[in-house]
């Protein structure tokens, strides 16, 4: 549906996005995860055709997007920003904005908006203005304003940053209901991996503007000390030290694939240079494959390990239990 090919995007000469290929397939439920500043918002703005990549191509339905066609294609892709903003006027006028542009008849418009208002619980807000709304309400109105347009691709930038848990659940239920009625693609940028895992069909990890080949758990921004071979990098503000094999020096992103972490109840005598102990804070069934993700607090830093359902049962893993996570220095990838 939407594709970026060979895209290098720069702001004032600084490379912020470097993607050989990024595809949002038709009807996909895609999550892009990564730290703040990883390039997620920039990626969404490129996909929304709001910015033109410094280098590279943007394709829509397999065809290059010519500059003149961007405005027309924008009507099929809609972005909801991380901190959305409403226009001057009432909530109703905001919801009608895009429909009016498309010349939607008044009766049809009332139907679409009436329907959305009910599903998003906006009825009491319709005549309010932006300064009379909370952040969460603005968010809901902004999502409604985008959904009213029935886009082929809906791009959501950190939709949960200003929402509480109940609001988040409501949002995803609304999106699910909308997709059940009419298939369309959703691409969400998030730094909350748990949420992404819970509902997305497919996850892409971004780190420093590049797609990261590992699952997005256990990504840490560090400053690597000088020297060669095995080094110790402080993560979580020095809470724990991770041994890593690299010649890189200076700022970098470390990644440890959850499947590379051994989980045990006793400290293991192995070649693994990294052994940490802590309590399990959460467990979740991984949708792709039968694995279980075990997250544990290792002295202030959360690490995630993937084990099979069988192993989780054998070790009687449960939240609150103390476990040991072990992984080799060579299992730590450096980006």
């Amino acid at each position: 549906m939407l594709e970026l090919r060979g895209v290098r995007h720069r702001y004032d000469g600084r490379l912020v996005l470097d993607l050989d290929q990024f595809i949002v397939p038709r009807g996909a439920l895609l999550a892009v995860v990564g730290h703040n500043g990883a390039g997620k918002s920039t990626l969404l703005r490129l996909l929304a055709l709001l910015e033109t990549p410094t280098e590279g191509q943007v394709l829509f339905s397999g065809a290059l997007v010519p500059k003149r066609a961007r405005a027309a294609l924008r009507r099929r892709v809609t972005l909801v920003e991380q901190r959305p903003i409403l226009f001057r006027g009432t909530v109703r006028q905001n919801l009608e904005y895009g429909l009016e542009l498309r010349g939607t008849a008044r009766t049809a418009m009332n139907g679409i908006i009436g329907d959305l208002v009910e599903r998003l619980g906006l009825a009491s807000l319709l005549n309010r203005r932006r300064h009379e709304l909370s952040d969460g309400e603005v968010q809901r109105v902004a999502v409604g304003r985008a959904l009213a347009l029935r886009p082929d691709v809906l791009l959501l930038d950190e939709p949960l940053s200003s929402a509480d848990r109940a609001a988040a659940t409501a949002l995803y239920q609304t999106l699910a209901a909308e997709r059940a009625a009419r298939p369309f693609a959703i691409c969400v940028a998030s730094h909350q991996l748990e949420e992404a895992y819970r509902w997305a069909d497919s996850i892409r990890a971004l780190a420093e503007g590049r797609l990261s080949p590992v699952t997005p758990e256990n990504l840490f921004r560090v400053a690597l000390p000088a020297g060669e071979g095995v080094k110790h990098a402080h993560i979580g503000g020095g809470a724990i030290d991770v041994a890593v094999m690299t010649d890189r020096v200076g700022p970098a992103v470390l990644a440890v694939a959850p499947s590379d972490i051994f989980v045990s109840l006793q400290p293991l005598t192995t070649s693994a240079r990294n052994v940490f102990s802590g309590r399990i804070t959460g467990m979740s069934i991984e949708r792709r494959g039968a694995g279980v993700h075990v997250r544990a607090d290792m002295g202030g830093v959360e690490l995630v390990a993937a084990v099979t359902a069988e192993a989780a049962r054998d070790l009687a893993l449960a939240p609150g239990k103390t476990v040991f996570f072990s992984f080799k220095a060579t299992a730590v990838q450096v980006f």
Partner: protein
Amino acid sequence: MLVAGDSEVYGIALLTLKVAVVATIISCAVGLPLGYFLATRRFWGRRAALTVVNTALAFPTVVVGLLLYGLLSRRGPLGSLGWLYTWQAIVVGDVLLALPIAAALSAAAIQGVDARIRRTAQTLGAGGLRTAWTVSREARFALAAVITAAFGQVVAEVGAAMIVGGNIRGSTRTLTTAVALYTSQGDFGLALALGLILLIMALFVNVALQVLQGRGHA
């Protein structure tokens, strides 16, 4: 004299108003879109263009008058228009002076609008004109101030009006040039009366714009 409704004074006031309104409309019609363009588009030489416009803000009015005089004088490039010493010449001079104000201040006003407004309008499907309208609506107070400033420049301008208008009685004598003339002739009473009319005019325009702004809230 004011109360008696001296026809010459009214003629001067009307001409001043006509020149100011026409010049304000032209300079804003060109200057506001130019300001929007400078504020929102990224193109090569944009910074230089902004510098030029900002520098033009401080252009001395007599210099503009002088240059325009050269252009409009009979042997000048635009001499065939026959505009020298006509009210059209004063309008051209005023437009040249008010245009940088309209462009530079509206660029600043538009730059002050949250960047998300423009992106949001675009992502919801607005084309170039509708996006510009949406963004401008958010900056309407600042843009109204821009129009006021342009009008203020035009209505108070004396240097260029004197040089290219010629301060001809009954033809190109505006309030400001008349004030200058009567002051130099020692007729302080008349000069003061004309100055008062000028003030009232400026006050009226400001009040009118405020009333317009007052309609509708954020």
